[in-house]
């Protein structure tokens, strides 16, 4: 029995979400008034306040990441379809946005739930934050409405705006992304401020500088103004609160805190990778349950594109993460040591394992994909070496520096300490950065082979081109390793490793990728097709890998979120507003892993439900057969 059409259901669902968000926003208004309540905390029943806020915030973030990531590549795919006049791309972009629609309402719902929990459980913290960030919250609401209506026009106007209005539709797509990115940037201000409520001296306005000097003089009456400013440079870290916790600065200075921009960039790239992986997992599921060859072909193609997008996001992600880590060290060295060398250090070993899974999985999928391209066999001989390189680099990346907690007393005695005299070198960032860059180059090589499979270049200079490309790869790898070895040297000037060596390693890896891509595009511009891609011919194993990648991305986001948030330790706002609740302790790694696992299960259950809702009542129609051929023997 059907009560109403799927479209009506979706609308009801959306209206509910907006209403809930509206209520939440009204609920938060009293928080603008300082000290609205005497209660610092109110307990959340059963699971406790922190766990409730943790679940709601993480789910909100996962859905938010999905709905911000997907439109970014959807509009690019739509543009490709428009330019190449290939309708398959247009249909796929439309299908991606369709997946976004249900997730969009859920994101808003979860945002509302989170605000309710915060208003109820942490009234004073929210009061303090809203006292500083009130104007940004109003801006957020405006952006949210902008994004909502743009998304609706973009989705429902898809068919109507084909043809000569297509460019307007594309502009709407770009606008949608601008709204979305702005929303994320605004909400990032609040949470990054909680971690790093400070900025550099050079970024302060004259009024704030004066207010800070005044506060220092009040705090230390024996000091003179000159003594306060002694040793202060343009890059000195200046807290934005005085000792009593009063806010000294303006909103923009609070927004532009130490970790804001690195988190913005890290999340922006991460959203693309995460969105791509969820789309790929969706396609993998549809592939596995597909009954017809056409369906299999379609979802094989979609999975390939999703994985490609995830890879594009994954490759620059470690660099953005490194920048974030550097800013945390610059803000507070103790926090940095806590992150990489103490409380959260083992989390980064888990992170290495999971990113290893991502890279191995993504390469596995590419190599599997070459099995369905005629003429790709010639590249198979390189595969064992590439597997070996990636696995050795992952081993370096995941080797812990300090082995005391995982060794017996006799093993420690045999090593002569907590560090292995040789493998201990792998525990340092110099070695790990080298490993990451080599993994990225190898993954790029896998993609290059995939791209070339089944094609024969006709350019007269193809021989020289291949030699140049080989030399570039070789020199790039040698340079990366040499820079890594230099990193172990003594007598390196201050800041040389972080400010010179690491960026150069990254530049070498990116430089090789850019130059090789350009050469390869020209070399294969008029290539003849020597073998077709049998879409639908992928192994089922490779589809499970796509699902594994989505699960790994989700877990990784949850765990790294625990690190980012946990770094504050016993503070709601680091150094300003102390956490005096029963949850003031930092959860152990095992507790965090359990929580993240529970959240992940809830997330995939919700995603499954939303996707099912999106497909509910969908008329059985013949999917677009994507490429040259549909595999004949894929049953």
């Amino acid at each position, binding site marked *: 029995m059907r009560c109403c059409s799927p479209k009506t259901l979706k609308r009801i669902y959306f209206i509910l979400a907006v209403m809930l968000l509206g209520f939440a926003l009204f609920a938060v208004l009293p928080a603008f008034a300082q000290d609205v309540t005497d209660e610092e905390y109110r307990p959340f029943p059963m699971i406790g306040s922190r766990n409730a806020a943790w679940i709601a915030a993480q789910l909100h973030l996962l859905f938010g990441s999905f709905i911000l990531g997907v439109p970014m590549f959807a509009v690019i795919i739509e543009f490709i379809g428009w330019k190449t006049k290939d309708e398959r791309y247009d249909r796929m972009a439309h299908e991606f946005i369709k997946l976004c629609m249900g997730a969009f309402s859920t994101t808003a719902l979860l945002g509302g739930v989170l605000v309710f929990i915060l208003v109820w459980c942490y009234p004073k913290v929210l009061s303090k934050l809203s006292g500083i960030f009130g104007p940004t919250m109003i801006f957020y609401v405006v952006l949210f409405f902008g994004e909502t209506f743009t998304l609706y026009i973009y989705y429902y106007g898809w068919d109507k705006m084909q043809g000569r209005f297509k460019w307007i539709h594309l502009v709407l797509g770009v606008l949608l992304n601008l709204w979305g990115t702005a929303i994320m940037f605004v909400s990032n201000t609040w949470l990054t401020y909680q971690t790093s409520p400070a900025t550099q001296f050079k970024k302060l306005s004259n009024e704030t500088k004066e207010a800070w000097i005044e506060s220092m003089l009040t705090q230390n009456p024996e000091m003179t103004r000159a003594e306060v400013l002694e040793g202060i440079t343009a890059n000195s870290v200046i807290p934005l609160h005085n000792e009593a916790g009063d806010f000294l600065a303006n909103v923009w200075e609070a927004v532009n805190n130490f970790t804001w921009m690195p988190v913005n960039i890290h999340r922006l790239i991460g959203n693309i990778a995460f969105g791509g992986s969820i789309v790929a997992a969706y396609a993998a599921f549809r592939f596995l349950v597909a009954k017809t060859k056409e369906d299999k072909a379609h979802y094989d193609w979609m999975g390939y594109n999703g994985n490609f997008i995830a890879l594009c996001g994954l490759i620059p992600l470690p660099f953005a993460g490194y920048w974030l880590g550097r*800013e945390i060290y610059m803000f507070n*060295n103790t926090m940095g040591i806590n992150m990489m060398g103490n409380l959260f*250090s083992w989390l980064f070993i888990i992170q290495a394992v999971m990113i290893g899974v991502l890279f191995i999985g993504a390469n596995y999928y590419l190599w599997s994909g070459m099995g369905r391209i005629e003429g790709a066999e010639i590249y198979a001989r390189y595969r064992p070496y590439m597997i070996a390189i990636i696995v050795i680099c992952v081993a370096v990346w995941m080797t812990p520096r300090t082995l005391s907690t995982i060794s017996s007393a006799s093993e420690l005695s045999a090593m002569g300490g907590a560090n292995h005299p040789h493998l201990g070198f792998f525990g340092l960032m110099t070695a790990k950065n080298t490993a990451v860059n080599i993994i990225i180059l190898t993954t790029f090589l896998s993609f290059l082979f995939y791209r070339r499979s089944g094609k024969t270049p006709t350019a007269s200079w193809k021989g020289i081109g291949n030699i140049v490309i080989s030399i570039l790869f070789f020199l790039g790898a040698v340079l990366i390793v040499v820079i890594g070895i230099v990193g172990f040297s003594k007598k390196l000037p201050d800041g040389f490793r*972080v400010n010179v060596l690491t960026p150069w390693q990254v530049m070498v890896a990116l430089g090789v990728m850019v130059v090789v891509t350009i050469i390869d595009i020209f070399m294969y511009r008029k290539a003849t097709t020597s073998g077709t891609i049998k879409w639908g011919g992928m192994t089922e194993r490779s589809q499970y890998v796509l699902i594994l990648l989505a699960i790994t991305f989700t877990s990784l986001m949850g765990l790294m979120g625990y690190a980012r948030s946990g770094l504050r330790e016993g503070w709601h706002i680091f150094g300003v507003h102390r956490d005096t609740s029963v949850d003031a302790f930092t959860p152990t790694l095992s507790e965090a892993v359990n929580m993240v696992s529970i959240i992940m299960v809830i997330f995939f259950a919700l995603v499954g439900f939303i996707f099912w809702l999106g497909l509910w009542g969908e008329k059985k129609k013949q999917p677009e057969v994507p490429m040259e051929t549909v595999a004949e023997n894929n049953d």
Partner: protein
Amino acid sequence: MKRVSLFTICFLIFIASWVFLKYVVGGLISVPIPNSVIAMYMALILIAILVHVSVEDTRFEEFIRPIHETLVDEKRSTRRVVLAVLIPILMLGYTYTNIAQKANPAGDPRVAHPVPPSEFILTHKDKEIGTMQEVENPYRHYEKDDPEEFKSHVENGRNVYYDNCFVCHGDHLDGKGHFAHGFQPLPANFQDPGIIPNFQESFFFWRISKGGPGLPNAGTPWNSAMPVWEEILTEEEIWDVILFLSHYTGYSYRSFGEGH
């Protein structure tokens, strides 16, 4: 000659890798690798093997054929019997070695490095020096401004070190002092590239001045035997010994944003 199956090759590679890590790297080339680290590497090697054999259908079928035959082929009953006997024996051996362990206590439970409390103010006895983030070695600037003065501070640091520290941290600052082997954890090895370049001078001042008893509650037990040197050394002597550590080893201390 009968062709060796892919499964056998993979199995032999797996065993050879273990032998290589355990006895070649952890014996001939270097000191033994902890079992937990070997297990980690072996898991990766297993993944590498499975990736290699399962990327293509044909190879995957070739890989699982012997497993399939062993399980269902009537001609392979001998293999099944051998496995039926071998697997319980291996499990028995595994169980026995875990239950009947020799006295081999767990290693040091400490995580990588102690970290001072986030709101920590650096002090020497009761005198406030400043926050960890701000404080610099007051004699470091002599390195450029007055090399002779700098040299005298380094020499003073050398005397302080060999009067007080070398018995644990070693003649060559390598953590191999006379008393070193009586401690768990072992004294810090300043020649290690992961020690000096990873910390600012203010961190060293904190560790030296407060010693083992001054370590934070988080992450306990630290089991550090380091004395509270602020009760013995002056502020200048501590800064001087910090200068000497980097001068002798050649490593620079970490600056903001810098690290290994």
